[in-house]
């Protein structure tokens, strides 16, 4: 369904927190309609900005530790990480131009 790489509770530190790149984590679940709607848009943004930001997915059903740690109460929730820190949170499925505007500082 998506080209984005899956991260898990077990791989989160390696793949996200210790990564030298800017990484956006898409917190999602199978049963979340808006998550499915926004997924292809995130794929497009990742593809068009592959040199600036990486987008990975975390299934909140299978990975409750990270969902709890990052206080997820609403999905889709997209969190941008740099150097192990959350530097931006975007909540809810939005059209591509709105997401690009939210993420402008990372896509420039």
């Amino acid at each position, binding site marked *: 369904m998506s080209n984005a790489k899956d991260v898990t509770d077990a791989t989160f530190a390696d793949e996200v927190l210790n990564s030298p790149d800017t990484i956006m984590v898409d917190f999602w*679940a199978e*049963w*979340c*309609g*808006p*998550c499915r*709607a*926004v997924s292809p*848009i995130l794929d497009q943004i990742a593809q068009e900005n592959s040199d600036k930001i990486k987008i990975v997915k975390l299934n*909140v*059903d299978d990975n409750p530790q990270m*969902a709890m740690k990052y*206080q*997820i*109460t*609403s*999905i889709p*929730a997209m969190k941008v990480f740099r150097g192990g820190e959350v530097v931006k949170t975007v*909540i*809810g*499925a*939005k*059209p*591509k*131009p709105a997401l690009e505007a939210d993420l402008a500082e990372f896509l420039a």
Partner: protein
Amino acid sequence: MRHVIIIGSGPAGYTAAIYAARASLKPLLIASSVEAGGELMKTTEVENYPGFAEGIQGPELMAQMLAQAEKFGTEVVYDDVVKLELEGDVKRVHLGNGDVHEALTVIFATGSAYRKLGIEDETRLSGHGVSWCATCDGFFFRQKTIAVVGGGDSAMEEATFLTKFADKVYVVHRKDELRASKAMQERAFADPKIEFLWNNEVKHIYGDELVTGIGIVNTVDGSERTIDLSGLFVAIGADPRTHLVHGQLELNPDGTVKVDGRSSRTNIPGVFAAGDVIDPTYRQAVTAAGSGTVAALDAEHYLAALPKETLARATAEPAAV
């Protein structure tokens, strides 16, 4: 140029598309980029759509409608309309990706958007405990205390659904009786996890990073109280989504698009409206579907009466200009 462009992908839009496509009008349907399928995509079991005696999941019902519309030749575009030019013989529909589509008729079926409480901190805490989608967010409130605001069918459905996760669900309603259907009411009344707070309005939402509580005021005696909870689900109705047609289509005082009698005809010839965007009263999947049928038949009738030369300008080719 098209014969017909349909804007909206709820029951009204898809049903209009099924009818228009079966009439060989090769409709183009603009489904939106992230809300395709409309409000039913956020519901669970639909028990009152005729033909499904065992009930059907909202998203599955919409997938079926989409498949049926496509089967007869509807072309679906997943983008958002950013501007409409409705006056004149040829209507122009501008999309977020820059494409402009032309058509002889437009069926406007954009539905409605969730109403907000309009109180301080609601927006700030939205997604941090304040939610408009129980099916999306209920999961995160396992063994928590939460509240649902509202007294209609959606509020009862959300409250009942949320008891799957939460230990305690308050229903805050500003009146002392519900608008919801009897079946929904009885289910909610029978649920031991649900407690009704009648005649109360939410005045405050508390919390720094996450919701920690709400302040409610009794509408009868003015008494105030605070409730500790971690989630607030807002289900106080919806407003017709008309921002695209302001200044073009006539609206009713309640904000719905004005149509002529029982038809779908708006004040602009060739522009038809259907579904929740014209309906302040019933707002059911099946009434919206019926309304979409009316719009497709009205559009067909309008096209049949156009001069041959005008009609000849519309081709079935998918021509973005």
